[in-house]
């Protein structure tokens, strides 16, 4: 049993334990890498991968960690966005057994936003095994895009996650409820990608938004820069503010965020749609950033 999962500690005590000599070095390396993945994945570089490799972590483990983190990103946002209380058989709650209000780690050691220039000379920063690109994936990718996206090529060492990523990309194609407009959906994807500084899906989210509204990209960029989305409709502003809160601090979501949706004529299904579009896009952006996946030559827009 590791010391930092004993009850009665606050966030700072846990952080001290993570940094202490009492846990294995490989655990410390994982914690540090996942911290960057969570707080600012765009700051990660090939040097961070090299540090893990030098510490005895294999390429396969690194890719596995990135994929586990991708799925957990969705669970975190589903929990906080849905107002789910701690329960006995919760994944981390069962291990920690602590009152969650003690743990606002997001307010501790917050990293500044990074504009790191990243070089990706190859397909990604991690090894791959192309034999895991099976005919089913090739057929699916060929029908949709005409090529196998680098996202899959870079994740071949964790090929078990392919069906998760396939469904993720299908869900991101369009809203999954009738309550959220297609343009609103495209705005959410683009905003989230920009906030995550997601290099891999940059052109895809630009092109998807342009298909819905050619002017929206410029307005969105201005809105982010000025912290003011007044150029958009009241509904759009509520949707964008919620998506932004989820990306930055999902734990700050409250029931009032749902009420804002209802107040502007949206409904709970639209709320769930924005919640999932944000969490899925974020999970893909951060995974691609963390593994240094080179953008494809064409956007991932269905043919």
């Amino acid at each position, binding site marked *: 049993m*590791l010391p930092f999962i004993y009850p009665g500690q606050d*966030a700072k005590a*846990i952080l001290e334990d993570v940094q202490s000599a009492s846990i*294995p070095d490989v*655990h410390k390396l*994982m*914690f540090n890498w*996942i*911290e960057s*993945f*969570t*707080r600012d994945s765009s700051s990660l570089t090939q040097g961070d991968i090299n540090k893990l490799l030098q510490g005895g972590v294999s390429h396969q483990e690194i890719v*596995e*960690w990135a994929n*586990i983190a991708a*799925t*957990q*990103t*969705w*669970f*975190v946002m*589903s*929990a*906080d*966005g849905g*107002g*789910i209380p*701690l*329960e006995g*058989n*919760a*994944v*981390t*709650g069962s*291990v*920690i057994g602590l009152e969650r209000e003690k*743990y*606002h*780690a*997001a307010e501790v050691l917050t990293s500044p936003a990074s504009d790191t220039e990243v070089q990706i000379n190859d397909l990604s920063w991690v090894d791959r095994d192309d034999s895991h690109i099976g005919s089913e994936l090739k057929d699916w990718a060929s029908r949709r895009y005409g090529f196998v996206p680098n996202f899959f090529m870079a994740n071949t060492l964790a090929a*078990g996650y392919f*069906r*998760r990523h396939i*469904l993720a990309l299908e*869900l991101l194609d369009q809203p*999954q*409820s009738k309550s959220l407009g297609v343009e609103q959906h495209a705005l959410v994807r683009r905003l989230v990608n920009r906030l995550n500084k997601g290099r891999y899906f940059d052109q895809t989210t630009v092109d998807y938004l342009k298909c819905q509204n050619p002017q929206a990209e410029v307005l969105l960029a201005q809105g982010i820069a000025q912290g003011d989305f007044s150029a958009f409709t009241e509904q759009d502003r509520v949707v964008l503010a919620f998506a932004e809160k989820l990306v930055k601090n*999902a*734990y700050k*979501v*409250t*029931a009032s965020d*749902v009420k804002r949706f209802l107040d502007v004529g949206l409904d*709970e*299904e639209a*709320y*769930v749609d924005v*919640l*999932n579009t944000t969490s*899925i896009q974020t999970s893909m952006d951060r995974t691609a950033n963390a593994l240094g996946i080179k953008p494809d030559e064409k956007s991932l827009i269905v043919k």
Partner: protein
Amino acid sequence: MTYITRVAEEEATGSLKQDFEFVSGSYSKAMNMKVPTPQVYTTNTIVPAYFRFGAVQNRVLTNDGQHDQKPGQVPNILVNFALSFYSSCFY
């Protein structure tokens, strides 16, 4: 008190019912006792496509509910914990 309307496990039908059964069965196997589907999945019951996504992620993480993956240097749950920790989410 959760924020949005949810479909109860016993009232689910169609694909929602199937996914509930899978996730509940997966956790029951892991815990060696019958447990209901964890609430974190139920945020998405009113849009079943997203509930399906949660079920698929459980399938991926557990090898289709078998829970027989090889242990690595770092337990998967510790990676989950780290991400939750830095998100201030301790669900």
